[in-house]
């Protein structure tokens, strides 16, 4: 049932009904969270979770892709990236509340051997900075979600958000500088 519904909502979304996001996001959230749990605690029992892989896997599992236009796939990636942000932030906030300043959990970024790590606080501060940026330039926030939380390429981002590649590039440069400054202050 979830699959048909998500597919249907995605079609409605693609045909211009942006209101369905309110319905779509919680569904995708729930499903992706389940998938993340399954990856980490289910049979496969991986020790790390690849966020970009999760976004793609979500598409395969949640959307009846035989029944949907190709461009809807790109839109889905955009939505899934946003959901990924919510999932990680929710976890971070929950963990943070539990730890109450104790040992901070580490989230591995980028390269495999954990050479670059960011802590919970970083995730939360990026999220809070994004909330401020959203008031100034919403589209830039979507670009950051796609690139950072969803791990989408520039091209995928451009398709996910229906904007041109140069626009993605420009938004990304601007948002990155702005966030950098916010995070360092």
């Amino acid at each position, binding site marked *: 049932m979830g699959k048909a519904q998500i597919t249907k909502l995605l079609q409605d979304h693609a045909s211009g009904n942006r209101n369905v996001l309110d319905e779509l996001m919680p569904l995708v959230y729930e499903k992706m969270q389940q998938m993340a749990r399954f990856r980490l605690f289910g049979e496969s029992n991986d020790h790390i979770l690849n966020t970009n892989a999760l976004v793609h896997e979500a598409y395969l599992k949640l959307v009846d892709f035989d029944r949907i236009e190709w461009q809807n796939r790109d839109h889905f990636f955009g939505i899934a990236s946003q959901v990924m942000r919510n999932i990680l932030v929710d976890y971070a906030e929950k963990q943070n509340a539990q730890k109450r300043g104790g040992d901070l959990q580490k989230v591995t*970024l980028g390269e495999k051997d954990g050479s670059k790590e960011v802590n919970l606080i970083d995730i939360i501060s990026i999220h809070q900075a994004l909330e401020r940026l959203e008031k100034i330039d919403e589209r830039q926030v979507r670009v950051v979600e796609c690139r950072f*939380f969803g791990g989408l390429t520039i091209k995928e981002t451009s398709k996910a958000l229906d904007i041109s590649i140069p626009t993605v590039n420009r938004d990304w440069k601007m948002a990155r500088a702005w966030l950098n400054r916010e995070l360092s202050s």
Partner: protein
Amino acid sequence: MSSEWKIIKEIFLEALELEIDKRENFVRNKCRDHPDRADELLSLLQAHEQKSPLDHPLQTVKKSFLDDDWSRKISDRKIGPFKIIRELDRGGMGMIYLAERDDDQFHQKVALKLIPAGITSENQTLRLIAERQILSNLNHRNIAKLLDGGITENGHPWFAMEFIEGLPIDIYCDEKQLSISERLKLFIDVCSAIQYAHQKLVIHRDLKPSNILVTEDGIVKLLDFGIAKTLNPEDLNDHRVPITKTGLLPLTPAYASPEQIRNETITTAADIYQLGIILYELLTGFRPYDITGKTPSEIEQIVCHTEPTRPSTAVTKIPADRTESDQTAKKISTARHTRPELLQKHLRGDLDTIILKALRKDPERRYESAEKLATDLSNFLHGQSVSAHPDSLIYRGQKFVKRHTIGVLSTIVMLLLLLGYAATITWHSQQTEAALLQAQQETLKAEQVTDLLMEMFEASDPNEYPGLTITAGELLERGVQSAEQLDGQPEIQAQMFDLTGRIYMNLGQYELAESLLKRGLDLRQNIFQPGHVDISKSLHNVGVLYWNQGHYQTAEEYLREALQLKMEIYKGQSESLATTMTSLAIVLKELRRFDEAEPLYRDALEMNLDLFGETHESVAFSLNNLGNYLESIGEYRQAEEYYLQSLNIYRELYGENHPMVAGRLNNLGGLQSVMGNSREAMAYHEEALRIRQSIFDEMHPDIAESYHHLAEVHMDLEYFDEAEGYLEKALSIRRAVLDPAHPNTSQTVNLLGILKSRTGDYEAATKFYQESLEMKIKQLGEDHSEVGIQLNNIGLLLVRQERFSEAMETLKRSKEIMNIHYDDDHPLQTYPTLGIGHIYLRTDEPVNAEHYFREALRTQSISAVEGSWLIGNIKSVLGSSLSQQKKFEEAESYLLEGYEILEEHFGNNHARTQDALERVVELYRDWDKPEEVYVYQEILIE
């Protein structure tokens, strides 16, 4: 976004283009009067240079981060008096857990539905409450019972139902190898549950085998009222009705009714429809429609417009692999405790009729209630007569055959006459349809002639009588011979000449047709008073013949005469009058006299609507013609609408496998091609070919037409080998059955030229183009628009060969001819304009090139859909001409848009997309943007 932010963004991005040490001066300079803005910018520029946690996507997350207790502890949770054991199912509407009553007195297992902690929407909560409310009103042995309900300490509503240990009904039936009768008995129980729910004003809306379980004791239990609707909102007491906006309801495509797919009002008839699908599946092992792998719009088309295969036919479905299908048939019948032949026999007749009645597209024509459906099934089980009648069309067909039981031959003759007329020939096939319509009318009137034909065949030597293997040609020859001997009966002789002449015309044998039709006309003019209705018909037919041959002026003369006679004869309205009006309109359209043509088309449509109402073949015919006209003047969207309306009427009248349906699909495919939607076009043409091959013999002109168009779309998609194969087939049929200079033959020759040109064989291309040009000049004259199109192609070929001055001359001549026939906004103007632009681009005159490309973009944008590949192509070359003029920013947006459209349409590996990418890379090279060059170079290499 504030204007301040915009300014900051603009300056920031501009500054980034500069060397680092020049940025500060630049910013200070730009913000002389806004020191705050300058500071803001400088801090951003500084931040730009720093490393950022955002530089690497958040690729991996450690397990420990996501570890939470909720998923592990759910199994211990207590909800009301129940303890959760494990998860049973999950869906958008909530989770279902197996749970157990916790006290010592009971050991009852229940299915507990709950919206889990975490994210919930208000709508989900409301739906869960609504479902609980609905269930509390339903108390039936075949519906899973509500046992308890409440709200968790976190405020989430939940309820517990009877836990059913059972199998979905389809699996149950197969595992137990239930016979057809046993299956029907179970199904009748399902009907009774639905009937009960309907009486309680509840529509289930999501009936499917997985929601109907059967327990080990064979008790049916209906589940999941998660999207059920109650007809009386008061039943929900004080609870608010969940907001089920249309379009948001989940549905299972394989079981959705036409009204659900279309988002129309849902009544209990939707449940009847779903019952029909389930019954179909239980009895045949197949679903009535195969929708696997189909897009939503294809599904809508199938569910709302395609008639389902009769169940008795479905069980003998023979896919490509025969042995495999034998095994399938065997497997299915074994599961039903019978043999394939017996199963088919069992289903044929009443069961077919009952199931098809439940599956009717129009909700009002289905069974009024589940009870009525159950009654028919139970009557069937007891050998009593059932209430359902076959669909009226079939019914009428049967009666028709019964009235004509003189012998096999009469059926053949009737079929021949009907099919002969039904045969459509030319690619703008409306005209022959006029003949068909008339023929059908006259076939009924002219039973005398038919009987005569029959007698003659029967009188011939019985040893020679070729029975079922008689060919159309043999019958026709005999018909003509017999007509020759009818000297004493000139009226009937004329009728015979007319009939056989029209059949030859439909077979594309125009010379024979011409002599017969003209003899018919002469005879009639001799024996009747001027102004006789038969004379008007002969005039019409001769006019149609000349139209078919492309002699438009002569055709106009005959048709005008026919029209004038008919107006005197019929005075007000008549179908025959409308037909001639349409024929004349078509000829005028061919002569590019649009102002005279359009009112005739519209009047004919009005007349047919007044005479027959909306669902009638004459209306379908007029709609199609009007669509065709609109297509030829470039009003593509309107054209599509009319074509679809026409198609739907024909489908409704004749079912799927009919030349008329194929003809409309063909027109729709042609239109999609012109609009640049090659994939859609291909689907239409393939479907048309399939229908035509199932009706006609391989050498039929309609089949040639399908091949021709399939070649066209395959070429658009660069499947050149396939395209060439189709073209060879089309050409060999057309050369064999059409006049040597027939417009359709020259079209195919021209297309072969295009193919050769695109695959680089310029010599062969030149040869085909010249041949086609000669044919067209001979047939149509030097200034015909077809000649203009041909010259355009020759011009483009010369561009490819870099013979620019010859090319320019040819294209300008082509444009001259186009200007005679079309106004400046016509999409056909795009082609020579685009060609001239290309010459300028290639000869380093970008300013001129830009001018022509913009003009091409304008004419094409007027009617093409957004995202048409041709538009993508034009944007890309336009970008190139701008880039050559160093107008980089504008060039960039056109080039990227163009590339994206082409990529969307053809993928990255298509030559057109690759060309567009190369143009993008070139732009960034000239613009000195190595980063972007790198990005696109990478895609190019991909």
